[in-house]
């Protein structure tokens, strides 16, 4: 089966998805699409429903209501889709050797034994685990196990790669390595859905995002659109003189010769700067910046401990 195919429909299609656990509704009326070839950020605080949505999409949970399709139909491993899934709750057969486990999953994902073995060795060399091929998994560190798990996830050259908090447990060096590998997958044409609390990763990698809060979508679109929706562009300037009142902008802050302005109605930075100069303001510096996703997050979720922690990592 080819996930994307020539069908005009999106690769992942979720429509009116609802999920109840007993009396508790954890997801309600969630709808979004993921297009073939894009990298999609699936964002939200803990308990907002991200992992539940992914599990329902992959048939691990039975949804209460709604449509969850991959490649135009509900996912089933029987269909032979080239899927790579790195779950949040992750682990492998700890008593087995690294190579045996990788070859096993490679076989399950459709590779023949020798190819699975060759690919695994090449991958292990790349992530500096070449000498650990015969080592039992429980003898590896947590980060090393994560690398093996990532290898298992991508070894079938997935068309759809779903990564639930992929950088969890990685140090900065290995996080960079992981990001490189995700980049390569993306460049090779894979569609990537990524759950993460690392906003800089989202801004660097993702084409579009959805923000989930309490089981509902709070924002959905390109990264720029979401930034725009929750604050848009800001102009920061250092000056001397007096800021004039203007229909072109609002003054967000103004103290000690430093100000932040919010443009109105799509006014561009040149028009604002010209107006300031025309009114005799001596502008020493002027920069334009979008609201960061970090700031968007804080606006949507408030300062939550896990987000604060993620931002400091």
């Amino acid at each position, binding site marked *: 089966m080819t996930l994307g195919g020539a069908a005009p429909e999106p690769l992942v299609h979720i429509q009116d998805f609802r999920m109840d656990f007993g009396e508790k509704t954890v997801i309600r009326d969630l709808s979004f699409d993921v297009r073939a070839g894009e990298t999609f950020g699936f964002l939200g605080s803990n308990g907002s429903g991200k992992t539940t949505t992914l599990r329902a999409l992959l048939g691990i949970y039975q949804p209460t209501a709604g449509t969850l399709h991959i490649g135009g139909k509900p996912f089933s491993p029987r269909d032979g889709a080239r899927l790579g899934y790195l779950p949040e709750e992750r682990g*492998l057969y700890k008593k087995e050797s690294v190579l045996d486990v990788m070859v096993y999953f490679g076989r399950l*994902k459709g590779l023949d034994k020798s190819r699975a073995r060759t690919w695994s060795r*090449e991958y292990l060399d790349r992530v500096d685990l070449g000498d650990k091929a015969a080592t039992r998994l429980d003898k590896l560190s947590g980060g090393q196990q994560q690398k093996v798990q990532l290898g298992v996830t991508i070894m079938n050259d997935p068309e759809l790669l779903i990564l639930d908090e992929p950088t969890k447990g990685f140090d900065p060096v290995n996080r960079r390595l992981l990001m490189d590998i995700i980049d390569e997958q993306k460049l090779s044409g894979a569609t990537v859905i990524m759950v993460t609390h690392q906003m800089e990763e989202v*801004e660097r990698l993702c084409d579009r995002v959805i923000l989930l809060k309490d089981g509902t979508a709070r924002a959905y679109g390109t990264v720029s659109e979401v930034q725009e929706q929750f604050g848009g562009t800001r102009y920061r300037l250092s000056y001397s003189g007096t800021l004039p009142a203007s229909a072109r902008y609002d003054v967000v802050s103004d103290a000690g010769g430093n100000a932040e302005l919010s443009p109105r109605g799509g006014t561009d930075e040149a028009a604002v700067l010209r107006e300031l100069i025309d009114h005799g303001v001596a502008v020493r510096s002027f920069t334009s910046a979008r609201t960061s996703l970090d700031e968007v997050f804080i606006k949507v979720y408030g300062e939550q401990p896990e987000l604060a922690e993620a931002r400091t990592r």
Partner: protein
Amino acid sequence: MTHHSTLPEAPAKAAPAPVPPRRPFARHNLRTVIAFEFTRTLKKRGFWIATLAIPVVIAIVFALVYLSNSSTEARSDAQKTASFSFTYTDDSRLVSDTIARAIGGTKASDAETAIRDVKQGRSDAYFAFPAEPATQTVKIYGADRGIFENGKYDAVAKQLLTVSAQAAVGSPQLTAAASGDVKTEAQTFKDGRLTGGIGSAIPPLMFLVIFYVSIILLSNQMLSSTLEEKENRVTEMILTTLNPTTLIIGKVAALFMVGAVQILVLLTPVAVGFLFFRDKLALPALDLSTITFEPGPMVVGALLLLGGFTVFTGVLVAIGAVMPTTKDAGTIFGPLMALIFVPFYAISLIISDPQAPIVQVFTYFPMSAPVTGLLRNAFGTLSPLESVIIIVELLVVGVLILRLAAHLFRYGSIQYSGKLSIAGTFRRRGQARGPAAGK
């Protein structure tokens, strides 16, 4: 902050080339699962320690028996031919003086003198043969030569009486006939056809032995096989890679193969001992010519074994899917294992009165049906109709339980911290299936 490009920096090392799968994703997965589960079990040191422990113990016991028997036999032979002086009195008049003299015996005039001679070391032993040796005790008085050496007095006294009796009868055949040392061969008939007797019961009983050995040796592995995915957090990777039914069937098939290896390892020392050292090990003679293989009971036995194995495997796998840890599963596992031994409490009824109500209950209750059915099949009290009913019941129940086990694995194996609500997994679509916590 501006939106960065998604283009990455060049990686330090080249990634392995993408691998297009050469064969369809879902094919051959059963074979892969079986091979993986089978080989990894055989690679475990613990498996071989557990598997070889019993044969090693058997081999040690056999070796001890062998050495002991060799020593005993030599000592016995030595004792039978032991040369020592003894006196005897014979109220039975069965003992031949000639024979007694030939082996060093002298007839004593009276018992008191003979006993005194032994006490004072003038004679090694004195035997007092009573009037009725068959019902009365032959009294032996001897000089103490140690616990084991003293056995020669008993051996010589008996030998003297036996040889004297044979000489009196004048025919070894008559002696054998008189002592009941004869062989018989019985033929029984049912509906005009020759029945096999006990010889025909032995082959179908082997299925019962295989059933017990498989369940006892493999039950722990069956239980832990699905718990392993849960405890190692492999479940989500597995569920998105292959169908849980394929995984379960693969595990069961691999366990069956592992069981076959274990049985082979267990039987090897027994077979070697029987074939090459039977006499030395004092193993009973097995006259294979009396064994008959009747197709009907053999086929029924094989199917009962298959059905019983399926039922028990399914139940154990289901327990593994429901319970969060091996320790928790153990609380259910014990009573379940007891169920397969329950029919043996009524074994005499099962064999002699198969229509007794308790036997009928055991015959049709799925957990006791395999053992009861296999026993009745071996002893010829299971009618063809009953055989069909039990086999169909076991296979249907077994398949249903395996399907239930796969279902529970699918929805229970991602419940990492608590026991699964089985009812919860069957809620209609209006209620989601899965752990009661969303993320």
